[in-house]
């Protein structure tokens, strides 16, 4: 054994040679609830399940360059919407959860388990009887399971997000519609810790989701194919 210093040291045998957006969230929720409540006769609710993939949240360089992004995640959502003239307005809440992974040349490392809440309001316009397009405004709320020792140590970000989507639907009997939706959304990302560490600017984060949906058709619309 060796003791490299009289004060403090490490020893190895010599023989070894091997080498805040919460108010906004409230607004979004109220808008959605208001939209559904405004016209109960045409209000409808639905559920969604699918997959969401995301671009990099952070690019950094320690020894080598690497990137950090959320793994593809299972997404679950609920929607509520009502008719407004020839449009539909609605509110949605989607939650996805997966590991936040760093990828560098020598391998991968897990930063934390990451839950992303995405409340939004949207405007949907039928383009065909079976196809509609939608525009969306919402928030991305990041909720990591571990904050200490991560980029979320000094706070978890809430970012505004915009999105576009297409939805195709097919009726299942009189009361239900089965659909498939593809969404794209965009938001900026940074955290207080990243800024404190000297990162400047923010990353544009692109997300694409594919969601199956099931919604209840309002009574007033059931006779109309």
């Amino acid at each position, binding site marked *: 054994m060796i003791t490299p210093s009289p004060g403090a040291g490490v020893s190895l045998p010599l023989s070894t040679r091997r080498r805040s957006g919460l108010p906004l969230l409230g607004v979004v929720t109220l808008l959605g609830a208001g939209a559904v409540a405004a016209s109960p006769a045409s209000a409808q609710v639905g559920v969604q399940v699918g997959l969401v993939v995301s671009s990099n949240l952070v690019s950094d360089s320690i020894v080598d360059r690497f990137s950090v992004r959320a793994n593809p995640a299972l997404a679950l959502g609920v929607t509520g919407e009502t008719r407004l003239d020839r449009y539909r307005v609605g509110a949605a809440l989607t939650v996805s959860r997966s590991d936040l992974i760093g990828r560098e040349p020598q391998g991968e490392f897990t930063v934390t388990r990451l839950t992303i809440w995405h409340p939004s309001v949207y405007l949907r316009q039928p383009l065909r009887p079976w196809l509609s397009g939608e525009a969306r405004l919402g928030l991305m709320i990041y909720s990591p399971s571990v904050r200490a020792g991560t980029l979320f140590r000094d706070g978890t970000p809430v970012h505004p997000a915009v999105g576009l989507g297409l939805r195709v639907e097919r009726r299942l009997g009189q009361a239900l519609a089965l659909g498939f939706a593809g969404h794209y959304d965009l938001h900026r990302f940074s955290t207080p810790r990243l800024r404190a560490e000297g*990162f400047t600017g923010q990353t544009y984060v692109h997300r694409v989701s594919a969601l199956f949906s099931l919604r209840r058709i309002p009574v007033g619309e059931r006779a109309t194919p």
Partner: protein
Amino acid sequence: MALAALLAAGCGAVTVPDRPDPYAFEEQQTGIVFHWPADRLPVRYWVDPAAGPVAGYIARGLEAWEEQFLYGEFRAVPVTDSSEADVVVRVVGATPADVPLTNDPPIFACGGVTRYDAPDAANRFPRPPVVELSWDSGYSEVDVANCLFRVAVHEVGHSLGILAHSPDEFDLMNANPRVAAPSVRDRATAEALYHTVPTVLPPERPR
């Protein structure tokens, strides 16, 4: 549209901060590079109950080191069962007095060492590293406590894999630590270590 404009406003290219150059983290005589792999986190630290206040110093040291990382590269937890330990911490001799720490100038009233056994044929440490702290009864209780705290945090740095000393006297990982918290160079070194492929694996995890 307004929100789209908001998204675009003020959004320049992301720049990565300049980090200080790390000092050497590999063991100087053998070249061994070691850090705890991601599948071994959190690292489990057991502190001998006879170490008294040192358990608290180690806990604060673990927290201080964890906070150096941005991407969760190192995490640790205390355990109460020594058979579960990834790292063992002991105090040589009598239990030191538990007195409040102060900001007095550093007095070298104690010492510490982190012992790793030679790697086995599989390039794996055969046993958990052992941190040993000792103290000199010729100093005041508060000087001993301040010294043990500094050295405990320093030895945590060795136990997470920094197997060398910084040449800078203002770094925690200097051989004779005068400060009680990692410096920016200590941080840069720990970060660089955890983004370097190790040459030796940790011991098999105790069951």
